[in-house]
């Protein structure tokens, strides 16, 4: 061995050893296209927690999946094979999660979901290395159904887009809702005009409307609904009422009740500090997605305090303990590594010229999910 190649080998050994000491996290999330607001909030919340921890031995590699399952899969391969990340996180959409999570956990990686919680991964498809820090997809809809009972709605018209999460939504609502259904509709995914559906709602004789139309679909629906003259009370999950899109809906959303596991006025010190520091850092109010990103990073940090990722069993136990201060107050995992948490009812209000949400009560207490029993780890 010549001196030169010896030096090279030594340098490479040094590089390898520094890489060993660092924890590498791969974040694949949606940063461009129509759904970018959600991914950006998750990323910003996550990175805020990493920055606040002051740890410089954590490297986060961030990539944009463009909301496309094929790109998410490619990025996952790249993250695992060439970036050699230890932990993956970031995916927003359930269809992308289904394409990525089983493959990643099968290769022994940890996956922490900051958003998507498809039923398939909560039940039979659960995995010891998969943790969901947000909710199981049905949860917020279940809470909406429970809330509808408490305010005495007895004849709901329900609608959602025709795709897996839309079906989960209506299933979730009906699981807790005890009244009659005036109508049940599946709309097209990405539909922008709801005049036809609103006419059916008007003709149906319903006493309330439940809808799950995330993102731009919800903006369109609410504006058109407000303009149509139909004045039945509306309930929905937080996805159409998050901080990012409320400003685009405007006054049309005022007074609408929606269900969420988090709100910015949840009374605990972690949340108060989070809301303040997020607003100071990014110049906007955090959304529930930002809180989920923040909680995901803090869960991860709490586990890294206790165990190294290379010791998978110890690290997994540390994650399962969920020994961190959540923005939601109490937080713990159920047997299928999905949260057991309170889900609140919120109301859209106007503060100054900003539209935001105010807590009005608890819709479901310590709710786990309907699929935990099917999970065998």
């Amino acid at each position, binding site marked *: 061995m010549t001196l030169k190649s010896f030096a090279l080998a030594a340098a490479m050994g040094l590089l390898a050893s520094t890489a060993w000491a660092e924890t590498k996290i791969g974040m694949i999330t949606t940063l*461009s*296209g*129509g759904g970018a*607001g959600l991914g950006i909030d998750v990323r910003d919340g996550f990175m805020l927690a990493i920055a606040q921890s002051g740890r410089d031995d954590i490297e986060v590699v961030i990539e944009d999946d463009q909301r496309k399952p094929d790109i998410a899969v490619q990025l996952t391969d790249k993250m695992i094979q060439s970036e050699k990340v230890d932990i993956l996180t970031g995916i927003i959409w359930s269809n992308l999660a289904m394409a990525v999570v089983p493959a990643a956990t099968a290769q022994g990686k940890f996956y922490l979901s900051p958003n998507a919680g498809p039923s398939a991964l909560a039940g039979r498809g659960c995995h010891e290395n998969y943790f969901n820090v947000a909710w199981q997809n049905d949860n917020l809809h279940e809470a909406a159904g429970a809330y509808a009972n408490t305010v005495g709605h007895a004849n709901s018209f329900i609608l959602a887009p025709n795709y897996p999460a839309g079906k989960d939504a209506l299933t979730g609502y009906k699981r807790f809702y005890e009244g009659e259904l005036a109508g049940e509709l599946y709309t097209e995914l990405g539909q922008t*005009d709801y005049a036809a559906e609103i006419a059916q709602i008007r003709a149906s004789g319903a006493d309330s409307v439940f809808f799950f139309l995330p*993102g731009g679909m919800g903006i369109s629906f609410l504006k058109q609904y407000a303009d149509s003259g139909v004045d039945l009370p509306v309930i929905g999950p937080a996805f159409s009422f998050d901080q990012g899109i409320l*400003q*685009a809906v405007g006054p049309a959303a005022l007074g609408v009740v929606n269900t969420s596991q988090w709100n910015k006025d949840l009374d605990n010190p972690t949340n108060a500090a989070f809301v303040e520091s997020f607003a100071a850092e990014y110049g906007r109010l955090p959304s529930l997605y930002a809180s989920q990103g923040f909680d995901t990073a803090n869960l991860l940090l709490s586990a890294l305090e206790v165990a190294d990722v290379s010791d998978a069993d110890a690290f997994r136990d540390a994650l399962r303990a969920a020994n961190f201060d959540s923005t939601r107050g109490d937080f713990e995992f159920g047997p299928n590594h999905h949260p057991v948490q309170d889900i609140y009812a919120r109301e859209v209000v106007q503060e100054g010229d900003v539209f935001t949400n105010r807590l009005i009560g608890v819709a479901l207490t310590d709710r786990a999910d309907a699929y935990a029993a099917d999970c065998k780890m």
Partner: protein
Amino acid sequence: MSLILIIEQILNGVQFGVMLFLMASGLTLIFGVMGLINLAHGSLYMVGAFAAAGVAASSGSFLLALMAAMAAAAMAGVIMEMIVIRRLYDRDHLEQVLATFALILVFSEGTRFVFGSFPLFLDVPGVLSGPITLPGGIQYPLYRLVLIAVGLSVALGLGLFISKTRVGIQIRAGENDREMIAALGVDIAKLYTLVFALGAALAGLAGALVGAIQSVQIGMGEPILILAFVVIVIGGIGSIRGALIGSLLVGLTDTLGGIFLPELFKFFVAPDVAQTVGSALASMAIYVLMACVLIWRPTGLFGARA
């Protein structure tokens, strides 16, 4: 199913149709006159909506917002034509599709760069908001009626412009034989830019008008672009009248199909199955319509050439 509901749905279909017309008329002119497939037409729709939202937020005037939308879209169209499109007229359709697809990405990320990733707020102006009661007790949003009126008057104006004015005659001549019209001393490059700006302004107007009842967000133009292509194939490429008839057909088929097909199937199968099968068929209805029209008239309803 009451008569009131049926009439309301027909109005919805017509309203959807005339908005489609604003998109499709520009697309069909550009396709017919220049032989160019412009996938980025939906981006001009988005530019219009964002410009309107920006101006409405700062000035508070919806009318000013509409003018800004048309101006911004026309300007974006002219810049796009001069820098990129002009080089594509002699190329084949595949290269045009590739280049204009790239333009979609450029416009999307450019809009994000300027306006951020979150949807913008654009609302119906106060005087036009809320429902009015039509004869027969039908409650219908005033704004949607105004959309129908605006769309139909644009259609009329455009029809007169194409058939009666000198520029309109040149446009029609350019459609038929571009070498001959160039030989007759018409500045064909200027004519192309003008047609492109006109098409872009109409797309921008549609974006602003529709943005007020939908969401002003990145990527909002692409779904409607596909429908606009269906419209011009049905109506016949290059024909304004074809675009109008095609738009109304597609608007009505899409809206009424979504309502009545599930109801129809309920006579034969269980309600939940009817709902699933009916909605699935309804989303195919406009393509079935397109296929039928093409079998009957391969050049479209009013198309002169294939």
